[in-house]
């Protein structure tokens, strides 16, 4: 089946504005990287605010950081790194045309991503009960409580924005799963899987920075 239909099949995926599949692929790659650079600038604003306030209020940030649960954070880091592995395997399965493996690895990635979000919900609810949510539930009683509020404002803004990207990623995974089950991707055409992989790895890398900056830095 693959040998007889492959040429026509790959041609059918070239949109009218492109001359050939190669041009379409290289446009997709460049577009995705440009999008990720945009994402770096987007998160960059938060990282800048973090850097400035941590250098201004190092003690308050250290005190505040001790309220975070390193075990849950480390668990989530492991979960996300594992999900990057399964995503990379999914891309490989798509490129080699193994549909069953593709579906399996996309599903595992979705499961790991959902695990991460579930743990994040648990963490957030702990913070809520401990009165560590700026503005809404804030019951910190310490001399540097005001500066700790900046830490937690940034904690929720940064991890919240990251979690939002995870939710978008989970939706993307569901779409890819449905299309994979329909057999849309093959060794000839799998660009969406590969491009989504870039996005997923990017979101993982953001967490790789967030974890030490928010959870670990006060523990050295």
């Amino acid at each position, binding site marked *: 089946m693959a040998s007889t239909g492959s040429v026509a099949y790959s041609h059918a995926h070239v949109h009218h*504005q492109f001359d050939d599949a190669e041009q379409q692929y290289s446009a997709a790659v460049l577009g995705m990287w440009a999008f990720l*650079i945009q994402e770096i600038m987007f998160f960059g604003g938060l990282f800048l605010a973090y850097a400035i306030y941590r250098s201004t209020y190092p003690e308050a940030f250290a005190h505040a950081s001790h309220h975070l649960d390193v075990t849950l954070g480390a668990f989530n880091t492991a979960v996300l790194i594992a999900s990057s592995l399964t995503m990379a395997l999914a891309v490989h399965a798509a490129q080699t045309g193994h549909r069953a493996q593709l579906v399996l690895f996309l599903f595992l990635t979705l499961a790991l991503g959902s695990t991460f979000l579930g743990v994040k919900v648990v963490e957030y609810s702990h913070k809520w009960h401990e009165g560590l949510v700026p*503005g809404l539930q804030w019951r910190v009683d310490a001399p540097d409580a005001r500066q700790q*509020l900046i830490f937690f*404002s940034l904690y*929720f803004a940064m991890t919240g924005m990251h979690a939002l990207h995870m939710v978008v990623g989970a939706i993307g995974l569901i779409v890819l799963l449905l299309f994979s089950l329909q057999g849309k991707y093959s060794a000839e055409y799998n660009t969406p899987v590969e491009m989504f992989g870039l996005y997923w790895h990017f979101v993982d890398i953001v967490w790789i920075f967030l974890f030490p900056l928010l959870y670990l830095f006060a523990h050295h």
Partner: protein
Amino acid sequence: MDSGEVRTNYLNAEYGLLSWLVTRDHKRIAILYLISVTIMFAIGGLFAAAVRLELLTPRGDLLAADTYNKMFSMHGIIMVFFFLLPAIPATLGNFLIPMMIGARDLAFPRINLLSWYLYVVGALFTLYAMVTGGVDTGWTFYTPFSTSASNTNVVPTAIGIFINGFSGILTGLNFIVTIHRMRAPGLTWFRLPLFVWAHYATSLIQVLGTPVLAITLVMVALERAFHFGIFDPNYGGDPLLFQHLFWFYSHPAVYIMILPAMGVISELVTCFSRKSIFGYSFVALSSVAIAVLGFLVWAHHMFVTGMSVYAAMIFSFISFGVAIPSAVKVFNWTATLYRGSVSYSAPMLYALGFIGLFTIGGLTGLFLATLGVDVHVTDTYFVVAHFHYVMVGGTIMAYLGGLHFWWPKITGRLYPEIWARISAAIVFLGFNLTFFPQFILGYLGMPRRYHVYPDEFQVLNVLSTAGSSILGVGYLLPFVYLAWSMRYGEQASPNPWGATGLEWETPSPPPTENFEKTPVVTRPAYAYDLEEVPVG
């Protein structure tokens, strides 16, 4: 219709509102943008009219202080985010870039349509905020006023600007990928029209700068809605951090507004002096230089905030540096005119107006980059006059010039030349009468953003308001006769100006696929002196 040879083009390929709302054709999306930015321009213009009317007299007799604050805020927000930023890239850029590089469409047509919808949703959010009470923070949203003091619709406005920001980011992304990947055979980087170079530089700023504004507005909204403490001095936060983040985007954003305009001027000046551009590669790379330097000068908006004097000196120095690539452009356009066969069609009148007004706007920018002078004129009408010379005298002049120049290509009809020349003259006169007095007012010390002023400033303010009504007529005229020409204008040939550029090698209006056959490029841009380009 009676001649029986109605060619299929992008306008008559499909009919019905739905065919427009789901179109992926870059030319149709450009038309959608053209209509939407025109509506926003009209709304922003009404707010400006309210401001100018109030300033007719020294006392606040037309608008209360709070209402006046909302008027200038909404004027700025609408004009900056919903008109000046998308005006040239999303309309002319969208229409022309694929045609100029010999492509059938942008790289991502669906994302292009998504951009337009994001623009519309963002605009609706902002208009909703305005209808339900307005916003009074100025277009700059300075904290802590915007986060804790203002009791107006800051959050819905910020959401609108946030959404609209992603419209611009996606347009920029689309242009970058298209220009990299979709050029016709033989169309090397240094054969590209300068319009394309200018949009490439613009797109870099959109992709790198706009997300920073987006996340900054997220922080403002979180702080306002949930009392987060990022910019709030009550918690040890720094309101100046907001200004740094805001201007990190919003200074480069003025280059998002002016660079495409410069691209338009390069096309007009060469065509109407029948000459190749003087120093092509310098003009091309000066766009990139402006984009890069533009990211390193933001703190010149903050010289009076008490920032480090050493940082201020460096920012002042780099701000002077931006004058170099800008001057390269002005000198090279002028050198292009030298010994050219200059003709004065309406687009050229706009282009010449641009060169003069942009030069004044740019040179007064050097006053503001000078630390000592800036302290004197910060937050005065001098600043208002300066940026209106660049934004209105620059960007809108070029936008109108470009719109006239490519109108035959876009609609397949010629506009009435006499009326166009008259309106170009009215715009030029009205503009100068409106904004030149503001330089003097500012230098004499009239602050911006107040609805009352001392009596001795009245004469200059009356001149300015009178000028704005003339300017209004100048803007209304093209609206009328361009609309008229769509039905009654003379049929346009493929190349009515005898211009170089691939967009003129295809019928007017172009077919949906732009070119019957992908063109092969063998010449540099603006080869007016290599051979006679036939008109028609």
